[in-house]
Structure formats: C-alpha cells, structure tokens
C-alpha cells in the first residue's frame, strides 16, 4: 500500500515540483512572487489544444508552439509590465502578477468556454501491474519528462553562459552588473524560464485532470511545494513538490479524497507558521 502511494504520489509530485521550480527560479532573481503562474500554466495547456484542434498541428508541433509562446509571454510580462514598474514597491509588482493571472484566466473562459477540453496522453493511460504495483504508462511519462526537464535546468545553470549569468544574479545582482551581465536581461530570461517550467507542468498535467480555465489552482499546490522547500532553493522546490504529492496521495487513501486538497493548504499554513525557512531552505546567502 505504502509503495503504491509513493508510486501514485510522485506523478502529482513531479508536476508540483515543476511549478514550484517556476516560482523559485523567478523569485530568487527578481524577488517577485508570480501569482499568475498557475494561470499561465493553464494557458500553455490550452495552446496545445488550440494548435491541435484549430490549427491541425501534430501533437509534438503543438507542444513546441506552446513552449515557445509561453517563453515569449513570460518575457513580454517582464518587458511590458515588470520593467516599467521597476522602482515601485515589490507589492505593486506582485499585485500586477495577480492581475495578469486573472486576465489570462478570464480571457480563456471567454474565448474557450467553461467546458473541459480533452488533451492527449503522452503514453497509454491503461494501467498494468508489475510486482504487485499498479503502474500507468501515462503517469510514468509525466515523471520521466519532469525529471528530464529538471536535469536540463540544472545542466543549463551549471554549464551554459546563459545559466552562469542567472547564477551570478542569484548570488549578487550588483556583482553581476559589474562583471558585465545585463541584470534586466537576466530578469527577462527568468520570466521566460519560469513560464516554460509552468508550461511543461500544464502540458503534463492537462490529460490527467480536465483542462478548464480554473486548472490554474494547481499553482497553489506548486506555491505550497515551493514554501515547503524554503522558496529560495531549487533542490528544495523539487523535494517540496514530491513530498506534497506523496502526502496528498496518502491523505486521499487513508483519510478521504476530499482531504487531498486540504492537505496542501494545511501544509502551507503549518510550514509558514512553524518552519518559515521551509524544510530544506537555508538562510539567505550572507553578503561577503
């Protein structure tokens, strides 16, 4: 039973981890908490549907289109909204992200209707049993893709020029500026990167639940996972995501399915009250 909960929990956990990464990747560099991220995730899933159903694109091309447009949308938010707001209080920027989220959500409701749309699975949704465990190929694909994206993210930060500039801004924005890194340019990249992470989460999650304009509430799960992880640590965000997915699945099995969603809110509140740095968070890097 426990093993089954683990196996089932990691599917949701992988998606939460991606959303949590989306929050943390952006916040560490810009200090902005993007409350529209969940709705951007929904938009990205809808773009896949639009590409397939309305433009007649193959599934892979529709996904590529969605990822590109999502990255572009993120950069556009930075250029069009956040950069002009530079110098205003952080709270103003955060409220702007709420407004962007609401606009995306209601725009989708108005244009795509409130009805759910079907989104294809990556692999078969038909379960099979292996060593007493019920496995679903579609769910395994979700976990596999999410893990691959996480590895790619860490490799990018470690080994590419693009990633080194991001790490430098994480470490010290003034230091980054004086070695010749354009900090506003890195902010734009972070908005794009965060949007792509949310997009992958949305595209992975859409077939498992129903795609509706309110799918963005999954953003709250990702937010809770990021808080669990301390909100400034990328590995923490991943661990927080998997932990939340597993705990939630366990609560669904042992208590009731209605409890599932309450668990993440309870963890969120409990964590903020008892462990303000999260389970894995470290103190802010001390300035040298």
């Amino acid at each position, binding site marked *: 039973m426990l093993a089954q909960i683990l196996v089932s929990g990691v599917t949701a956990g992988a998606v939460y981890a991606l959303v949590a990464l989306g929050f943390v990747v952006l916040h560490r560099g810009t200090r902005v908490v993007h409350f529209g991220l969940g709705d951007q995730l929904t938009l990205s899933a809808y773009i896949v549907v639009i590409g397939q159903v309305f433009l007649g694109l193959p599934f892979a091309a529709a996904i590529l289109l969605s990822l590109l447009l999502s990255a572009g949308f993120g950069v556009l938010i930075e250029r069009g909204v956040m950069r002009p707001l530079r110098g205003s209080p952080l709270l103003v920027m955060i409220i702007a992200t709420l407004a962007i989220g609401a606009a995306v959500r209601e725009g989708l409701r108005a244009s795509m209707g409130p009805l759910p749309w079907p989104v294809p699975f990556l692999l078969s949704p038909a379960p099979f049993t292996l060593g007493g465990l019920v496995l679903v190929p579609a769910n395994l694909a979700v976990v596999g893709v999410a893990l691959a994206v996480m590895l790619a993210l860490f490799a990018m930060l470690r080994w590419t020029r693009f990633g080194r*500039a991001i*790490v430098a801004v994480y470490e010290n924005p003034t230091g980054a500026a*004086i*070695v*010749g890194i354009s900090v*506003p340019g890195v902010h734009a990249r972070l908005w794009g990167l965060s949007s792509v992470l949310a997009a992958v989460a949305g595209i992975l999650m859409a077939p498992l639940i129903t795609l509706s304009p309110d799918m963005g509430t999954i953003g709250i799960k990702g937010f809770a996972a990021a808080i669990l992880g301390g909100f400034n640590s990328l590995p923490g965000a991943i661990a927080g995501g998997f932990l939340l997915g597993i705990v939630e699945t366990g609560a669904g099995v042992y208590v009731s399915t209605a409890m599932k969603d309450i668990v993440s809110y309870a963890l969120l509140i409990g964590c903020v009250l008892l462990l303000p740095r999260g389970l894995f968070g470290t103190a802010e890097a*001390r300035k*040298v």
Partner: protein
Amino acid sequence: MTLELAGIEAGYGGARVVQGVSLAVPPGRIVALLGPNGAGKSTTLRVVAGLLRPRGGEVRLDGERIAGLPPDAVLRRGLALVPERRELFPSLSVAENLDLGAYARRDRAGIAADLEMVFALFPRLRERRTQPARTLSGGEQQMLAIARGLMSRPRYLLLDEPSLGLAPLLIEEIFRKLVEIRAHGTAILLVEQNAAAALRVADHGYVLETGIIRLEGSAAALAADDAVRDAYLR
C-alpha cells in the same frame, strides 16, 4: 585616450552628494581620489561605473560620452569597478568568481593567460581556487575582488578603498600589487581614505570634501602640501 569627468553632479533622493566633480585619469596612471568618509568618493565611482545615473555633467572615455550607460555597457568599454563592498559571489568558488570576471570576453586563450596573470599577482588565490568566496579572509576577498576586476582586462580599474578593514602589512602588499597592475598598462582611479598609502603609489591626486574637489596636484606635491598633511597624513 583618457577617462574624464566633467562637472559630475549626483545624489540620492533629496541629498546632493557630488557637486560638480571634474577629474581626469590618463592611460596607464594611478590617480588617487582622497577625502574623508562621506565626501562622495564612492558615489563618484558608482556614477563612472554606470551604477548611478548622474544628475548633471559628463563622463567621457576617449571622447565618448558614457554617463548613463548601464554597467554592462561601461564594462565592455574597458572600465571595471572593484567596489567598496567587494560584491563577490559568496557561495561560488574563487575560480568561478574569476571566470565570471571574464564574462564579457570570448577569447578563451586570452582569458586563460589573464587567469595565470592574476594567480601570479595573488598566489594566495591559486591556493584557494576551489574554496567558496565567503570562506576567504578579508584580505583574500579584497584580492579576489581586484583579480575579478582584472579578468575583464580593463583599461581602467576603478578601485574603491582597497585598504578598508585590512591590517597594515596587507595594505602594503595590496598597494605594491597596484604598481604591478599599472606596469601591465592598466590605469587606476584609486579611491582611498588612507591618503598616505595611496599617495605613495599614485601619480596624481585629487582631494574631495563634501562633494567638491578642494585640491589637485601631483602625488608628490599633495604629499608635501600642509593642508593635506594636517588633514590626512599626520
């Protein structure tokens, strides 16, 4: 081929901190900008490095107006700031800090050669190359900050109070390195409260008080000046 400031005015909010500063740094020279705490020395350097937009005046590099350019554009024109607070990347290693110092460059061979050059200049950094910057001592952090600045191969190094918080022997060592850096062809605008140490290595100097240049002259003349001796040397 000169870095020139003409009538620079700058401040924060309502405070006018720098009130019409003009000075020149010829290529390959060390020019000291001296003055008491709060005079506006760091603010002047922040303007030159593009971290602060001036309210008036001009910064010219080889005749080009560079005031108001973003810091990355200033760096690409050959000016590197070593700020008072050092602004290192604390959890990255010494080697990674130096590598980021060369971020704006693409010439791999030149970067490798300059890495050898800064390791020769500060052998302590080679020993510590894998250590996170935050684990270095104050003096080593200052060396790393200077070395990181040099990794961009600047024509002008803007150095803010390299002696701050260091023991006298270490100050001696760092200032000897400044002479070596000048010998490599890099000019230095050296901001210091420690006038004695600065005037020993500088070619020329300016004294800034409450945002205004009060005195200017060759390092030797300033070191011999009664007003400077009374206020800063003693």
